């Protein structure tokens, strides 16, 4: 059974004290994290979870059966973005997930892309 998909207010978040977060990421900070991962990077699993995996890794593989953004993974796991970025980087290094990079807007956007967003919104 899938529990309610809606995560609660921040106060509900699990005991994500510094110690637990340190353990989850093996003490790695930004060094264990790929620079190209941001809040809207889409993550897709390429393998099934294995029993010996760290539970958070297995959980990410399970929820990313369909594409899911880093922000959503963070919300469902109730873990800070930077911790999820390290976890996803681990999975990437073992080719267990693929990431679909977000479009980066440096300055002015691509008119075709902007038009596509506009058309999509107009249909709402």
């Amino acid at each position: 059974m899938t529990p309610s998909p809606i995560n609660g207010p921040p106060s509900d978040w699990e005991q994500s004290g510094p110690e637990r977060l340190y353990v989850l990421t093996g003490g790695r900070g930004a060094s264990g994290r790929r620079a190209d991962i941001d809040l809207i990077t889409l993550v897709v699993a390429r393998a099934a979870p294995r029993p010996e995996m760290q539970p958070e890794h297995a959980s990410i593989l399970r929820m990313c059966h369909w594409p899911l953004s880093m922000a959503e993974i963070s919300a469902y796991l109730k873990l800070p973005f930077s911790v999820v970025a390290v976890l996803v980087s681990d999975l990437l290094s073992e080719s267990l997930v693929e990431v679909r990079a977000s479009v980066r807007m440096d300055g002015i956007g691509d008119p075709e892309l902007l038009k596509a967003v506009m058309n999509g919104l107009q249909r709402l």
Partner: protein
Amino acid sequence: MDSRGSELTVGPAREDALPASAATAVKIVVVGGFGVGKTTLVGSISEIRPLTTEETMTEVSVGVDDVRGVERKDATTVAMDFGRISINDQLVLYLFGTPGQQRFWFLWTGLFEGSLGAVVLVDTRRLEASFDVLGRLESGGVPFIVAVNVFPDAPNHPLDEVRAALDLPADVPIVACDARSRASSRDTLLALMRYLYRLSTQSAAPVAASAATE
């Protein structure tokens, strides 16, 4: 040891999953002070109920108790609500509401970085709360529009007056918005997109020319 494993069967309900073909994500940031209606706007148009992500940030502060003013690093957790709109089978739009505490908006690197643009949601009763963010968006080169959230009990100022009070550049659109209404929130996002499109076609000529020769 791993007794927590089964608890971690979390994730979106099947109806909240994106199609397998989703390949590209873009984002818009909704900026505004506490209680101005950011989450209401995100929630009224999002296809999923708004979710919360958080980030732990290190703030360098000067210890007030310390007469020598030694710098101290404080770890602070900042939460941010967001929603999602599937534009088509490949393209997904994410809407992020900024954290309530203004000092975090620009500390959270990557929040504005890479966004299409921003909607600055303002409450006419607290216009002064918007000055700082407008200045920072301008200097950061983030294109934005201003949306005046129409609260039933707020005085109804003509948009021109609000524009003048905010000292908005003439080309920056300003619209009235009812954040509770899906249609109004959609129109607000469309106003931003039209503005961005106009900016892109105004300055795209040299880029398009060079792309054509590749």
